[in-house]
């Protein structure tokens, strides 16, 4: 006689997995440290670059370098794509262009890698995957939860930028964009987190308990895509940029989510 088992439906599984992952993320100090760092970093950047603005350094050969800080606060969040004059958050290699919100995607890599790697390092994955023959709910849940975490870090950075701007006395002037554009820019940047989360998740499930490897792989592979963030989310962003980010995010999450799923299915979980 066949034994009857209660149906563990996809909805029920996903619901419980999300419950566990959100509970975990919001109870680990590491998450709050990352959010705290995201809040403090823009304050430090804005205050320090404003203090050093215009200072001259001379190297042993006698060459002079003039430090150039931000002209206005919003530069730390992005650049105006249409003007072509300012490229602080684009791809040039000066200090101002390197120290901006796009750094947060590196920080998100650390969050995702630590969060996933903890499952394997603690051995929790054994309990988890024994009762979860299907790995899809794990991938979806991890993507969603770390996306929320990453988006919160972006938001913390924006808040930090506002505080930093106030402290440093930089201008909040908007040149070539308005509040709606700025909102679209921030939303696009938050949505773009999903693209990176999907990449970092693949790297994390490849590396499993080897945290160092997952971070290394994530930063290495992510490096190729970090440049898309300023292009897809300029300061003068509009609804189209938001939709573009959303489409890209969905595409990456589904595609790379399937890859993560396959890796979990085909490889050893301990």
């Amino acid at each position, binding site marked *: 006689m066949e034994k009857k088992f209660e149906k563990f439906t996809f909805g029920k599984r996903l619901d*419980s997995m999300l419950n*566990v992952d959100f*509970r975990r993320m919001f*109870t680990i100090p590491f998450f709050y440290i990352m959010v705290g760092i995201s809040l403090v970093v823009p304050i430090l950047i804005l205050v320090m670059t404003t203090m050093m603005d215009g200072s001259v350094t001379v190297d042993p050969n006698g060459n002079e370098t003039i430090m150039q800080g931000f002209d206005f606060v919003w530069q730390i969040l992005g650049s105006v794509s249409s003007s072509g004059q300012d490229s602080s958050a684009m791809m040039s290699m000066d200090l101002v262009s390197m120290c901006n919100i796009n750094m947060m995607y590196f920080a998100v890599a650390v969050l995702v890698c630590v969060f996933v790697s903890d499952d394997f390092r603690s051995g*929790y994955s054994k*309990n988890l995957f024994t009762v979860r*023959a299907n790995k899809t709910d794990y991938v979806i849940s991890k993507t969603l939860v770390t996306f929320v975490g990453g988006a919160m870090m972006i938001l913390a950075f924006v808040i930090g930028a506002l505080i930093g701007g106030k402290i440093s006395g930089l201008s909040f002037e908007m040149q070539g964009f308005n509040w709606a554009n700025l909102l679209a820019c921030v939303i696009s940047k938050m949505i773009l987190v999903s693209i990176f989360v999907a990449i970092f998740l693949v790297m994390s499930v490849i590396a499993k308990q080897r945290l160092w490897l997952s971070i290394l792989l994530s930063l290495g592979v992510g490096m190729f895509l970090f440049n898309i963030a300023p292009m897809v989310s300029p300061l003068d962003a509009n609804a189209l940029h938001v939709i573009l980010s959303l489409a890209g995010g969905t595409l990456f999450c589904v595609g790379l989510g399937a890859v993560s799923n396959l890796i979990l299915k085909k490889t050893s979980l301990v």
Partner: protein
Amino acid sequence: MNAIEIRNLTKNFGDKQALKGLNMTVPMGSVYGFIGENGSGKSTTEKIICGLIHPSGGSVKLYGKDYTDVDVRAKVGVLIESPGCFPNYSVWNNLMLQAKNLSIENPADEIRKVLTLVRMEGAAGNKYKNCSLGMKQRIGIAMALLGNPELLVLDEPINGLDADGMRIMREVLLDIARSGRTVVVSSHILGELEKVATHYGIVRNGKMIKEMTAEELNLSCRTFVALKTLDMQKTKNLLGVRYSRVEEDEQGYLRVYDAKNAEEIVSYLYSLGLIVIEIKTDKIGLEEYYIDLMKEKGVN
């Protein structure tokens, strides 16, 4: 119906073949003692049953369904190597995570229930990392018991425990066995396993070499006569002429394996002028049976 049915299971790790066509049958409601030396394939088999590693070949069925079946696997509890707990979480929070993971409706009640079963009621608030090895093993069992699993897979739950920890663990395992669940438990401490198991599977070099019930083990375990005389060496030499297997055991007794009864030996020795000062009949235990079986198979 059997809880686990494994047929021709193979697993390769690169060039190394860990499982070589292993067959295993675990009846429902049994406590299955899974025995074998290090590297024989016990843990690999258990990890495959739990879906943690993938077999290279063969079939694994749990309650008649493939081992990847979502609904069946939701009813498997596991303790493999060490409990999967977050070190900085309390015992309660670790159990709560697994309870949420299993969508248990009244998680607090269920956690209290399993903590009582593993004698850990007072330790719920302790941080996991501050727990002793024995406590950690019991937390692992508590975690495996959450969600009222039909099948429990426990890998070496007794190893490394002190005498008191072993006693508590034995009581816990007996309680679990009484609850009617199917339990697969592997251990090197065969004396302890013997107290709880109803079925045995002995694995060697990735193959099942013997499967039997506790009754069958009892029947196949040879009886022996253990005795002491004032001149043990002379007694051993004399008995060695008449009986094919005479050995001295750790307690200083001479064991005669193929004697019909104790009286026969006493009168034989008396006729040779030797006085028996102590004599008893006994049966070899699981551990000795296992050692004998391994000797038969050419393992020292």
